[in-house]
């Protein structure tokens, strides 16, 4: 390619090639009008995408902000993530969701009483309390409002991933609640999923099956105003199945202690059938929502009525036998009121009862039967004998 020198400057020369393109080149002692073949052409300024310091600083700043935001977001999320659940079952069932750091993440309750208590708690107390402090405050509110009283027993279900968490929560709650003179019966739910709803269901199931006794006990104590037995807090060493451990002691106590006291008449004739008869009294108590099974129990008195008819004939004898179970668990006041009320209307219906009467009569002592049996049996026997004669 031939270049024609068009102009010469101090540091360069302007050349024109055969394609009529003007270029700058090194002036190697050229003269205007000279034709050159191999010039040193000027390099075009390559617009390389140079990253300036400002852009680097901006990018670094944005990246740092993103890292900061994501880290803080992760921290916030992890703090608010439920790690353990503590459920206290008193009049108000309150779930306390606890984070990894032991602070209370959220408080929930499905019962109306619990919601009221939580409202009051939120008005009075600050957020981010620790589990023990929150439990203490909630119980204090319950005491103030009369839902529980000093000396009552409360079931506390702790659902934690690790046994260490369970132990720590348990000890903390026990210590705090002891200050309020309450007695805690704790249980652990081995946590399989982190989902709270499933945990609640498990807890409720356990609660229904197991914790009925502790609920009833405080009421008995309230009425009697006597301190209950030493706190049944803590779980046995082998408890991985709370339903087997905690429920066992109270569930077994029910038939032994409570049945004889409430059901005075059956204690005489059929002691085995009467454990159910004691439950209708429980149904009258103001805590039905916690134990759906109790709602079904009110049906028990109906079958018991016929028995009471027979027993009503001998109230004095039954009262003498009842005191034995009452020594272990003190009798509840409403129970004796029922028996006389029921016995009065049942008394006139003697003819119907007489057909079933023979069974209790066999078990009753002979001297008791001899005194009262002749009066009702006489008309029947006469009627039966007359009928037999007619047939013959």
């Amino acid at each position: 390619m031939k270049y024609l020198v068009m102009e010469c400057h101090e540091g360069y020369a302007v050349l024109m090639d055969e394609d009529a393109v003007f270029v700058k080149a090194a002036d190697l002692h050229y003269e205007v009008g000279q034709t050159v073949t191999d010039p040193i052409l000027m390099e075009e300024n390559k617009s390389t995408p140079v990253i300036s310091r400002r852009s680097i600083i901006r990018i670094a700043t944005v990246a740092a902000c993103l890292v900061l935001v994501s880290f803080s977001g992760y921290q916030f999320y992890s703090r608010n993530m439920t790690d353990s659940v503590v459920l206290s079952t008193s009049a108000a069932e309150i779930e306390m969701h606890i984070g990894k750091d032991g602070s209370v993440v959220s408080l929930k309750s499905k019962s109306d009483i619990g919601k009221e208590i939580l409202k009051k708690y939120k008005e009075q107390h600050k957020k981010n309390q620790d589990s023990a402090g929150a439990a203490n405050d909630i119980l204090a509110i319950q005491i103030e409002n009369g839902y529980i009283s000093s000396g009552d027993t409360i079931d506390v279900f702790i659902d934690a991933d690790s046994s260490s968490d369970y132990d720590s929560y348990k000890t903390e709650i026990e210590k705090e609640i002891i200050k309020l003179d309450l007695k805690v019966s704790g249980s652990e739910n081995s946590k399989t999923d982190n989902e709270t709803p499933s945990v609640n269901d498990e807890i409720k199931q356990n609660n229904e099956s197991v914790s009925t006794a502790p609920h009833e006990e405080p009421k008995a104590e309230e009425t009697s105003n006597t301190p209950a037995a030493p706190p049944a807090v803590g779980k046995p060493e082998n408890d991985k199945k709370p339903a087997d451990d905690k429920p066992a002691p109270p569930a077994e106590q029910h038939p032994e202690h409570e049945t004889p006291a409430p059901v005075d008449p059956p204690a005489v004739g059929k002691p085995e059938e009467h454990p159910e008869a004691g439950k209708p009294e429980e149904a009258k108590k103001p805590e039905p929502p916690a134990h759906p099974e109790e709602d079904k129990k009110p049906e028990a008195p109906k079958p018991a009525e016929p028995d009471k008819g027979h027993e009503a004939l001998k109230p004095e004898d039954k009262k003498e036998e009842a005191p034995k179970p009452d020594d272990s668990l003190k009798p509840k006041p409403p129970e004796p009121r029922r028996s006389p009320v029921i016995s009065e209307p049942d008394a006139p219906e003697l003819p119907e009862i007489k057909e079933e009467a023979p069974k209790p009569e066999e078990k009753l002592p002979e001297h008791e039967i001899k005194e009262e049996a002749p009066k009702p049996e006489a008309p029947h026997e006469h009627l039966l004998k007359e009928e037999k004669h007619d047939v013959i």
Partner: protein
Amino acid sequence: MDPDKHQIMTQVYRAKKDNAAADEMIEAYMPFIKAETAKFINRSPDQSDDELSIAMFAFYEAIRGYSRLKGSFLKFAALKIKNRLIDFYRREKRHRIQVSLDEQSEDKPDLLDTIRDEHDEFAESEVREATKLEIEELSAQMQDFGVSMTDIAENSPKQQRTLEACQKAVAYARNAPDILDDFLKTKRVPLAKLAEGAGVERKTLERHRRYLVAVLLICTNGYEILRGHIMQVLKGGEKT
């Protein structure tokens, strides 16, 4: 900032826009350019040395390509000079095997004397003189249009497609004397007519208006030698 550095920066940024200022700056920093050249060739450069010319050209490139982000201007210029001289030496290596016609030795006669000279020096000098006159006339005429040779060099098309578009427009104007007459009278490039006649994007021609001024002037009467130089382009309009 150091006042000296501030002064250099001002000079550099002025020289980037003004060619005369660039020449002044090169002249002012000639000692620096010579010093950098001397470092490379290990001797004081002579005015006739190609290395010095290359160094001056590198200094000019440094002015054109400098920005504040690249640090000190003099360091940047020194680096440019050094790199250019290295490239020049690499390039000259290809010619080391060749023997210069001007090489003289005591034993042998000059090569230039032994080879028959086919060039007519007188004719060549006449043609060069005539060419120089044409170029001077062209430069003078271009000034009327407000355009210099350096501007045209900076405004020349770089891409082949753009170059072909401009050449089509020039070829169309060459075959349409009315357009060239209007161009000389009005001293404005008839971009609309050229774009319409040559079937080229007007925007493309607008971007290279100054280049078109120079080539259209060459196409007018009075520049026989220059037209002969670019005859290939004027014939077809497309590169063969």
